[in-house]
């Protein structure tokens, strides 16, 4: 599979230096990964592990206090190669929506509350289409219908739609130009189960139909199991494991992944599930060595001294844990 996105040694920190507080939050700390054309790549991890930060950085949507400290993000759109942090702002702008759509976390609230939804489509996509208004709206209507959304909703205000509809509308907005790469941050969290299933199947459908690549984030393992081709597990700003979905669930390697997968209750399975003690590390002062070691059941001495590298254990499968890989040195 050809790579669409390549991320190398990406570090992105929040630097807060204000009013008696000076701290640096290493929300993305040395992450490398690639995403193939047409692939759905899921990122999982607990709250505030840096998932949002990671994909913001990939989307090039950073603003202070977030800064990219090192590393690069390269896209291979339309045959070329674009390094998003080496581009001029207007070049980056030109990339957006045509090639790269980004659905932010909390996508229920990303539509302008005081204007009809129709205007959002005009604002975002009309320039790129290079067609007349009528044709444009015909296309929009066709797209909405494909997503099982009533085109009449274009004349509604966002608040007149339910959360799930708004979510879907945002996805429609992000996909209207059939971009090659779609990034979505928790697109279904806080939706109820039935709506969630609809939204997910819609995403899957679009992706298949358009052949786009998808990068998306959620902490809900059930969602990952349904949608993702490959999953990266993030813990405290680092990628700790990466594997094809089926493998990750059937044979998690990293102790954190094992816990994540093992603690999921299932209908029909009444066995008692353990709960993980301790709390996620403070990214402003992460623990030395492996960041998971204070909570890790398989903790060794070396874990508190050295940072475990992300080692490829088999093709398409990487893990960062001394207990799995041993000390490679």
């Amino acid at each position, binding site marked *: 599979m050809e790579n669409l996105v390549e991320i190398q040694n990406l570090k992105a920190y929040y630097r807060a230096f204000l009013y008696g507080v000076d701290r640096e939050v290493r929300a993305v700390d040395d992450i490398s990964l690639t995403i193939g054309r047409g692939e759905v790549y899921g990122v999982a991890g*607990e*709250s505030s592990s840096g998932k949002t930060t990671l994909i913001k950085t990939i989307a090039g949507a950073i603003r202070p206090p977030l800064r990219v400290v090192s590393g690069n993000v390269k896209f291979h759109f339309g045959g070329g190669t674009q390094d998003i942090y080496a581009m001029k702002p207007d070049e980056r702008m030109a990339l957006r929506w045509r090639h790269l759509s980004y659905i932010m976390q909390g996508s229920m609230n990303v539509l302008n509350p005081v204007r009809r939804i129709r205007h959002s489509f005009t604002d975002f996509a009309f320039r790129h289409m290079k067609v007349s208004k009528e044709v444009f709206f015909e296309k929009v209507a066709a797209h909405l219908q494909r997503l099982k959304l009533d085109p009449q909703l274009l004349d509604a205000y966002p608040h007149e739609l339910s*959360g799930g509809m708004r979510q879907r509308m945002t996805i429609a907005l992000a996909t209207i130009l059939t971009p090659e790469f779609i990034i979505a941050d928790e697109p279904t969290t*806080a939706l*109820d*189960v*039935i*709506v*969630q*299933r609809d939204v*997910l199947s819609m995403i899957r459908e679009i992706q298949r139909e358009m052949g786009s690549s998808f990068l998306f984030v959620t*902490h*809900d*393992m*059930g*969602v*990952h*199991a*349904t949608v993702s081709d490959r999953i990266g597990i993030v813990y405290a700003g680092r990628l700790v494991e990466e594997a094809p*979905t*089926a493998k990750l*669930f*059937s*044979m998690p390697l990293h102790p954190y992944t*094992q*816990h*994540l*997968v*093992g*603690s*999921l*209750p*299932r*209908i*029909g399975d*009444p066995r*008692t*599930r*353990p*709960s*993980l*003690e301790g*709390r*996620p590390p403070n990214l402003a002062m992460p623990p030395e060595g492996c960041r998971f070691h204070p909570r890790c059941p398989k903790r060794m001495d070396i874990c508190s001294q050295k940072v475990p590298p992300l080692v490829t254990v088999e093709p398409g499968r990487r893990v960062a844990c001394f207990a799995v890989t041993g000390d490679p040195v």
Partner: protein
Amino acid sequence: MSALLRLSHVTKVYRQGGLLGRRLITAVKDVSFELGEEPEILSIVGESGSGKSTVAAMILGQTVPTEGELQFAGKTVAIHNRAERTAFMKEVQPVLQNPFEAFNPLKRVDRYLFETARNFSAGKRPDRQQAERMADAALVHVGLTLEEVKGRFPHELSGGQLQRVAIARALIPQPRLLVADEPVSMVDASLRMAIVNLFGRLKNELGLSIIYITHDLATAYYVSDNIIIMRKGEIVERGRARAVLDDPQHPYSRALKDAVLAADFSPAT
């Protein structure tokens, strides 16, 4: 006749709009169920807007049913004044949805523990030390100690810790019923189990009954004794939790179950 809580034909109609031309919304329609004397965990599940929170609010005495009757320990719930409210709150306590929101970020979390201890003690108002002892005792039940909590602000605690503090607070008046409206929907998977496991423990150790309201069928299956499935304000199915979820009868219940995204890759563990 020995039921801790009985709802008989309870209906709640909300009124939207003003004096004239109001719009009526029947949030809960003719709902009856009861909790026995035996401690149990009752789950209420259903899609968004199905009236779960409204039922919870009525049980907590936050709103009054439009029709029907609510009985607690054999007595009709009627709250007219502060004394009655206090007496009722002593028996029934809530656990809120979002642990990060449930505490005033500008105040120390222990404040709520001490306040509860002081306001709900029978007889003399306990002094500071007594209140601390009561708080500590409650915290032990949820796997925390006062040491860990004292003087801390909400942002200094994790979501799991906060939710446990919130539960500990609810335990202080030694209530007989906890009403937990989506207590885990805002916390992530790894914390979720800690809370759900705690519910099971509390039921067994303290003999508490718990009403557990959730979207998450998997945890409902995991922890509850009985289950009620609601849709558009009505109960569509009820029974022993495992029985109902293993083999739902009502089409809606089945749809609900089907919508659950399970990570169905048989684990190697």
